[in-house]
């Protein structure tokens, strides 16, 4: 499905749908995930959590619990060396000052959301740990609370934190909005509401910790960020080099394993008991207490000329941070930057705020604030097209940013914006429209495009490192700190090394995600890992190749530039070859290193004053267009997606099979967001703490997603790849909402778009 790209270099391995090195272990269930690991003499740990969304802890007595059979230790906030954990941006070594988020490892005198951790128990068996949790004597006195952002920001609202309920706000103003509206032939206003959703990876938060023989506190867990070893050290008040985090191959992450999960608790318990400790959260705990995606209220007012050209945008965003900050301010920053979509917005104002409530905390999740805004700007774009009678593909082409144009924040687009082509191809892929299968069933089509940053904010000075070295038999080792969340991160690194060094894939072993033994590479978040660590591996491989070829050139009496490395040998232009083994022996003799550490620094920049509105925020963006054909049962409100096509410009597909997998999987998560997923929270109480009530798409719920992979060769990653982890989750909700209006005339503005909501919009339910 991938388009061919004209390139000056011929690629042998990159661009092939190779079988990933982890494939066999995964289908044969030989992969030892975090929860599959055990050590002799291991304790089992459990967390006592608050049943109240807002309360003062008036009594917390652990004596009875500590005396229960098998109990090794019961810990409360008093036992934590440093109970306040401050994080800037997970995994980064730079600080972000005012965005620094703090949380308590264990609740002190007050709980602010249901499920907040209050105490830790470790016992010989899990049953004993759970029984002891019940025996902790804790009394709460409920406190006044707020459960909506509107209430939270109202005068006199109960303060969730002493600093007040407004956590952060961003403003952008550009051009003359009033003058823009004055020129507009049509003005469309919309208010959109999005819900809490859960990452819902199938592997709950889990890990095992122990004190290793050298005294290093070692934690083997499922995490997207091994750099949290620094946070564990801070909480335990030990030097950072006394904590080691080994990241396992994850059973899914989607942003939910970006903040700390079990590592701090495991480190504490291992340190206090001196014994190995295991903690695995139940699904109920994970759904109850883990950070969710932010619910937003999005207000848009959009003015356009008769040609469809947008001349004014007025945008107001309000997000729910829940009870703690986590990454909320940054999520909101992503929303602010992407609020007008991949379109020109000469006259625009964006006001974005995020407020504390006593709801479950919200933080990173795939799409990270650039997701909710798609539902806003693409619903608006469709309404503009409909009001003016313009084709949905054309209205987007008319407005698409071109290279050299600026986003509202002032960032200039430096790479190709393929929206018109992507929209055309996704739309065309729907083919012949389906005939309605009954008179009361209506069929319609919708389109939605998006932009998603890849890579970290430029003033975080992001970097990644990777080490590559040959063994004496010519086999290759790649070491890189990158956690593999399941997208094939580690496998792609092998492909890149194989391409440059001509080593067959079955002769390469990759070690990832170990804070002590692999060079640090930063987080597997922000669609950054292929971009950043791919570049680090590429750099290491190219420099290692240059080292080796200098020696080879001498042996072959030719120029290094004329040599090629293919299939484990060096080839000269006159068909002479030199085996890698001979070359490595010669390197050893000549004191030439057979390994190299590559460090890649992303393009960096100074912090942008959003209010002043000028500057670069992200290294680059990935663009997409999704098209949906839906049928709506006008007697029941039921919506079914019949066809779905998702097109993204990935720059270059390193492994097309993995890229298609990201697109198909992301689109289906996005359809879950659009049509069914809903963490129901009533007065701070989460009513959906089981997969029997928190419903995610099943095989029977989803259409076949046709992945259209476009390769512009314009990305900043290795071989000009762009990040593709997050982008495909953005457009589905808007694409479906637009298709529903096309089918029925009803405009859905609240997610998820359930049958009940459609029925109400169609007037089938009146009360």
């Amino acid at each position, binding site marked *: 499905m991938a388009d061919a790209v004209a390139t000056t270099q011929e690629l042998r391995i990159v661009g092939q749908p190779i079988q990933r090195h982890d494939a066999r272990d995964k289908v044969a269930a030989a992969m030892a995930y975090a929860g599959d690991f055990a050590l002799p003499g291991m304790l089992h740990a459990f967390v006592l959590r608050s049943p109240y969304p807002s309360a003062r802890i008036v009594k917390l007595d652990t004596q009875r619990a500590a005396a229960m059979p098998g109990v090794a230790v019961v810990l409360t906030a008093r036992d934590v060396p440093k109970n306040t954990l401050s994080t800037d941006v997970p995994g980064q070594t730079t600080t972000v000052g005012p965005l620094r988020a703090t949380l308590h490892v264990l609740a002190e005198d007050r709980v602010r959301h249901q499920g907040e951790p209050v105490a830790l128990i470790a016992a010989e068996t899990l049953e004993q740990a759970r029984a002891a949790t019940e025996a902790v004597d804790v009394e709460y006195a409920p406190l006044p609370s707020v459960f909506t952002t509107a209430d939270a920001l109202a005068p006199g609202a109960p303060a969730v934190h002493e600093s007040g309920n407004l956590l952060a706000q961003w403003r952008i103003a550009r051009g003359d909005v009033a003058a823009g509206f004055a020129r507009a032939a049509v003005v469309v206003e919309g208010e959109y509401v999005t819900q809490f959703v859960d990452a819902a990876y*199938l592997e709950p938060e889990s890990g095992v910790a122990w004190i290793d023989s050298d005294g290093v506190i070692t934690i083997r867990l499922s995490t997207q960020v091994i750099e949290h070893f620094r946070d564990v050290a801070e909480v335990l008040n030990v030097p950072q080099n006394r904590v080691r985090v080994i990241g396992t191959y994850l059973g899914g992450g989607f942003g939910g394993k970006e903040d700390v999960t079990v590592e701090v608790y495991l480190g504490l318990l291992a340190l206090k008991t001196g014994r190995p400790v295991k903690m695995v959260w139940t699904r109920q705990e994970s759904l109850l207490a883990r950070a969710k995606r932010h619910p937003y209220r999005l207000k848009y007012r959009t003015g356009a000329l008769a040609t469809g050209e947008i001349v004014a945008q007025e945008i107001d965003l309000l997000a729910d941070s829940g009870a703690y900050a986590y990454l909320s301010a940054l999520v909101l920053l992503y929303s602010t930057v992407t609020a007008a979509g991949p379109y020109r917005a000469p006259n625009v104002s964006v006001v974005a705020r995020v407020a504390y409530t006593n709801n479950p905390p919200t933080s990173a999740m795939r799409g990270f604030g650039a997701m909710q805004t798609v539902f806003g700007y693409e619903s608006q774009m469709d309404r503009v097209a409909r009001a003016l009678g313009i084709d949905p593909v054309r209205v987007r082409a008319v407005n698409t940013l071109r290279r050299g144009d600026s986003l509202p924040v002032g960032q200039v687009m430096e790479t190709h914006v393929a929206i018109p082509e992507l929209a055309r191809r996704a739309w065309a892929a729907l083919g012949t429209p389906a005939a309605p299968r009954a008179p009361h069933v209506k069929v319609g089509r919708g389109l939605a495009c998006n932009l998603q940053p890849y890579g970290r904010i430029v003033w975080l000075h992001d970097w990644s490192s990777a080490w590559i070295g040959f063994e004496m038999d010519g086999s290759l080792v790649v070491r890189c700190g990158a956690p593999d969340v399941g997208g094939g991160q580690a496998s792609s690194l092998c492909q890149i090394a194989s391409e440059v060094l001509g080593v067959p894939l079955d002769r390469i072993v990759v070690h990832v995600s170990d804070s002590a033994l692999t060079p640090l590479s930063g987080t597997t978040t922000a669609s950054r890992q292929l971009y950043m660590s791919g570049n680090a591996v590429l750099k290491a491989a190219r420099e290692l190749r240059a080292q080796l070829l200098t020696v080879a050139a001498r042996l072959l009496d030719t120029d290094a530039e004329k040599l090629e490395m293919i299939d484990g040998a060096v080839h000269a232009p006159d068909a002479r070859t030199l085996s890698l083994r001979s070359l490595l022996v010669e390197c050893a003799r000549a004191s030439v290193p057979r390994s190299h550490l590559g460090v890649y620094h992303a393009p960096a920049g100074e912090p942008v004053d959003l209010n002043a509105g000028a500057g670069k925020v992200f290294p680059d963006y990935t663009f997409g267009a999704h098209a949906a054909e839906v049928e709506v049962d006008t007697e029941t409100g039921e919506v079914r997606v019949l066809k779905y096509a998702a097109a993204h410009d990935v720059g270059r597909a390193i492994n097309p099979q993995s890229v298609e997998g990201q697109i198909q999987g992301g689109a289906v998560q996005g359809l879950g967001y659009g049509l069914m997923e809903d963490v129901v929270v009533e007065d701070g109480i989460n009513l959906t703490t089981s*997969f029997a009530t928190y419903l995610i798409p099943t095989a029977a719920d989803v259409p076949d997603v046709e992945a259209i992979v476009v390769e512009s060769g314009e990305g900043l990653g290795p071989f000009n790849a762009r990040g593709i982890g997050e982008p495909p989750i953005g457009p589905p909700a808007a694409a479906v909402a637009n298709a529903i209006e096309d089918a029925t005339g009803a405009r859905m503005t609240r997610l998820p778009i359930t049958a009940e909501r459609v029925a109400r919009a169609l007037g089938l339910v009146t009360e």
Partner: protein
Amino acid sequence: MIRLTVNGQAHELDVPSYRTLLDCLRYDLGLTGSKEGCGVGVCGACTVLLDGKMISSCIALAVFADGREVTTVEGLAEDERLHPVQQAFMDAGGFQCGICTPGQVVAAKALLDAIPHPSEAEIKEWMLGNLCRCTGYYKIVESIQAAAGQARA
């Protein structure tokens, strides 16, 4: 004391009456291939075969398997040779993070045992009890079709 056969091997075990079959497999027998994804029998990550029939081992008690035969994901491959369903999941890329994959391949084997040449609708219907958060199911369906000797329509 219960007696059960797991992947052809007989075991005699003392287990408390509340022990789930999944915990018995994972903790008493060290077979960690079956996963706990939800604990309430709706996600399918713990799928095993009991006397050849597909069940959720997280909501079955170990005592329920007394005198019966259990097949787990570890029992699908013969020596080094993967089961054709496993091979198809590998070839078609019917996995990403892999945590649901053991349940998927066991359920798919049960499907093909029951319906050797299923339609796409039959595959989706059968597999709806096996959640996957990564793939969007496209390549899982494709893998099962490949294992059944079918090309995707």
